[in-house]
């Protein structure tokens, strides 16, 4: 038997191809890895000439979801040479004829998943103008002690995407769930 602990690599490859995965990552999301993935994705979209707006929106969603995951995933790896840790999770960019989708998936406590799901519901209930207003207001609100910008990051994801922002729990374990957040950007006709 070859290496890889019995993993059928070809089945894995074929399954990913059939799901039309453009780029995917599973592992510890250090800032270096995040930058590499994000810049690689941008390069790929530029080569495909999908247009500035689509490229920048897909890029922006990826960065926001990835940084969210790096900060909040409960599965964590120690970062070499420092006392800090880095979040572990899954990033997947897929496409179909009409759109690109970006998804993050990571383990999180059930209460965190519920809080994020209710934020997504609030965002999805807003019109575009309401969402822009809420985003502007949240950015200008004074920082609260210990509060990160997670909520406002989701608003930025939604502003870059076609509604709705999807947020779902795909697996329950004792103590934590697997939370998936995904956002879709429609393709545009380009002259490229």
């Amino acid at each position, binding site marked *: 038997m070859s290496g890889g602990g019995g993993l059928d690599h070809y089945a894995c490859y074929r399954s990913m191809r059939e799901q039309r995965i453009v780029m995917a990552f599973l592992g510890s999301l250090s800032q270096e890895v995040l*930058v590499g993935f994000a810049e690689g994705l941008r390069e790929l979209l530029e080569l495909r000439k999908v247009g500035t*707006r689509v490229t*920048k929106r897909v890029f922006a969603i990826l960065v*926001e979801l990835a940084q969210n995951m*790096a900060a909040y995933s409960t599965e964590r790896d120690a970062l070499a040479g420092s006392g800090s840790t880095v979040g572990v999770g899954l990033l997947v960019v897929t496409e179909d004829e009409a759109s690109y989708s970006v998804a993050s998936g990571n383990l999180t406590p059930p209460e965190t998943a519920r809080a994020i799901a209710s934020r997504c519901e609030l965002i999805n209930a807003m019109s575009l103008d309401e969402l822009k207003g809420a985003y502007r207001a949240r*950015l*200008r609100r004074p920082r609260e002690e210990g509060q990160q910008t997670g909520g406002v990051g989701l608003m930025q994801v939604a502003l870059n995407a076609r509604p709705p922002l999807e947020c779902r729990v795909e697996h329950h374990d004792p103590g934590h769930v697997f939370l998936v957040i995904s956002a879709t950007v429609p393709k545009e006709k380009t002259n490229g």
Partner: protein
Amino acid sequence: MDSLLLPGSKATLAVSFDAATGVLELSGQSYPENSFAFFKPLIDWIDRFAREEQPPIHLVLRISYLNTSSTKLVLDVFDLLERHFATGRDIRVTWYYAADDEDILETGEDFKADLKLPFELVAAP
């Protein structure tokens, strides 16, 4: 005081704050791991320059992308400039945007809407 020059990277802005001319330029894209740690020295430098030095301040921004936490810190930069402007300091801002980038134009328009100081939006050639 000394000028502040940083080369910039994939995830951090290039900084060119010229203490002799008062032209403060930020360019590139910003999505560092810790936005506060990146922007804090810039904000401190601008505050000190506004208080201690004479030249008018011209903030020139050539930004292609800001993540959410960087956007919040750029707002802090504008808040600081607005406070100094209110005390009579000569300050203006130029926001360059790529002609095909409506999202960055809109970001500039949103910043401008909050401010009383002169804020010019210019399509970059």
